[in-house]
């Protein structure tokens, strides 16, 4: 497989006992240093794929290579390259924060003295050092999520896989986690992220794969994917209340309430014409925002298209 590839999946398949085919021949390459989003609806096969890569799930067939190490031939070398942040809390709730991270480092062959140095580094970076002697069950949900990230980094992996790392985390904390992940990505760690927050994927990731029904339905750069959208909807807050829809020739618009106007604008068109028409009618615009997340629109479109094709 190509040099500079962090992860390569070749015709990966998984059929569970009972015949459920969770992964149906996925081919995927994630470049070294990438920040890659793996999206898909619930039950699409994302967690199974991650489970296979991290060797928690037996694959039925296909090939997985992590930094050139084939999982079938060099399993331990491949495992050394991966740090996994699973979706569910899976640490011993009765152990302390420090015990959890130091033991995990030990499983990867990091000597205890070095493990304590790294524990201080990562727990401090993730704002958990003050909680190092607290039992895991005493932590808040956000702290538990950060603990799992710290644990996954203890052996300083080249590839960090995060399965919905910000689920249930408040916005402020989520943003601080984003900053942290962006920083370690800039330091050279390849990151694969699954998330249900499409805004998160749009903000963080350079490339994206969308899995639906066990199939990779899209795999491209975030830029290329978003460029597929040819229409955007903007919500305008108007200063003056309107009894009826203002006249906007050639522009699709809807009056949601007397002070809120929705306009659909083709990407090729300028917004100036909208403002000019409103100004001409004596209407001032106080503020403006996108109606929906752009990626969300595309995601729904791609998944629906796939459903239509398989129906």
């Amino acid at each position, binding site marked *: 497989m190509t040099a500079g590839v962090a992860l390569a999946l070749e015709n990966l398949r998984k059929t*569970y006992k009972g015949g459920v085919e969770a992964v149906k021949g996925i081919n995927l390459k994630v470049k070294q240093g990438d920040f890659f989003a793996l999206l898909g609806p619930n039950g699409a096969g994302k967690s199974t794929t991650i*489970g296979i890569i*991290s*060797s*928690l*799930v*037996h694959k039925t067939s296909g090939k997985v290579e992590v930094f050139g190490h084939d999982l079938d031939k060099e*399993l*331990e*070398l491949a*495992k*050394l390259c*991966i740090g*996994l942040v*699973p979706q*569910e809390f*899976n*640490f*011993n*709730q*009765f*152990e302390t924060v420090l*015990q959890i991270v*130091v*033991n*995990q*480092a*030990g*499983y*990867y*062959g*990091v*000597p*205890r003295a070095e493990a304590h140095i790294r524990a201080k580094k990562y727990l401090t970076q993730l704002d958990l050092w003050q909680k190092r002697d607290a039992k895991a069950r005493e932590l808040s949900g956000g702290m538990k999520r950060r603990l799992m990230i710290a*644990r996954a980094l203890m052996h300083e992996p080249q590839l960090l896989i995060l399965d919905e790392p910000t689920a249930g985390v408040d916005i402020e904390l989520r943003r601080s986690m984003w900053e942290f992940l962006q920083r370690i990505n800039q330091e050279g760690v390849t990151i694969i992220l699954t998330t249900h927050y499409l805004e998160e994927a749009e903000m963080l990731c350079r490339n994206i794969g969308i899995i639906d029904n066990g199939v990779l339905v899209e795999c491209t750069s975030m830029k290329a994917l978003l460029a597929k959208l040819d229409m955007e909807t903007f919500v305008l807050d108007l200063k003056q209340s309107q009894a009826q829809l203002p006249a906007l020739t050639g522009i699709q618009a809807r009056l949601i309430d007397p002070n809120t106007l929705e306009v659909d604008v083709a990407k090729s068109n300028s917004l100036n014409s909208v403002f000019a028409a409103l100004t001409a009618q004596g209407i001032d615009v106080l503020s403006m925002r996108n109606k929906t997340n752009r990626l969300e629109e595309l995601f729904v479109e791609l998944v629906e298209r796939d459903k239509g094709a398989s129906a």
Partner: protein
Amino acid sequence: MRGLYFIAFKSIVIKEITRFSRIWIQTLLPPAITMTLYFLIFGSLVGSRIGEMGGVSYMEFIAPGLIMMSVITNSYSNVASSFFSAKFQRNLEELLVAPVPHYVMIGGYVAGGVARGLLVGLIVTLVAMFFVDLHLQHPLLVVVTVFLTSVLFALGGLINAVFARNFDDISIIPTFVLTPLTYLGGVFYSLSLLPDFWRGVSALNPIVYMINVFRYGFLGFADISVGLSMLVIVGFCVGLWLLAYYLVSRGIGLRT
């Protein structure tokens, strides 16, 4: 990679010892209390009416069996409960995703069970010394036997945990298999007291061989050949190791 494996092994053992030490009221104290009661009731009160058995006082006769009983129970239950809890809480995944070979993982958990088994054995021995003068006739044999028996039952506990689906499943074997086999394994009586038929049946109980050789190490006499007993113990250790390795490496009950 050998350095890595050794550090990983050490980490599992430290984690296991920390676990049972943290809950010492559940793990180390009960055997001390139970065995004190055994020595008081069976050894001192009932034993004084029984008189001698195998040429020694009854208290002296049952002491090695009671020590061995504690080692067996604690080695088994430590690994069974710890491994199953790790599986149940899914923190076993911490090990499954790490570059830890299966034999290191099994070895680490078994070493944790052996550490608890031997520590409890030592505590019970200290308790026994309040009631009886213990003299070791064959110290090396005592050490080897107690170590191998502890390994054997730690492996048994791990296999139990691999198959267990709920907490009931890790108490069924100790309650319905281990306890009867231990009580019928010659802890409280000499096999020579049994009629021929029941002596033959007892020969099918592997715990008989362990208590027999352990008692030989203390008292210098045995109901069954020491060589045969050692062969049975080593045979079971090898067999259970191979079974545990097969189950863990195939991911049975651990991976989907």
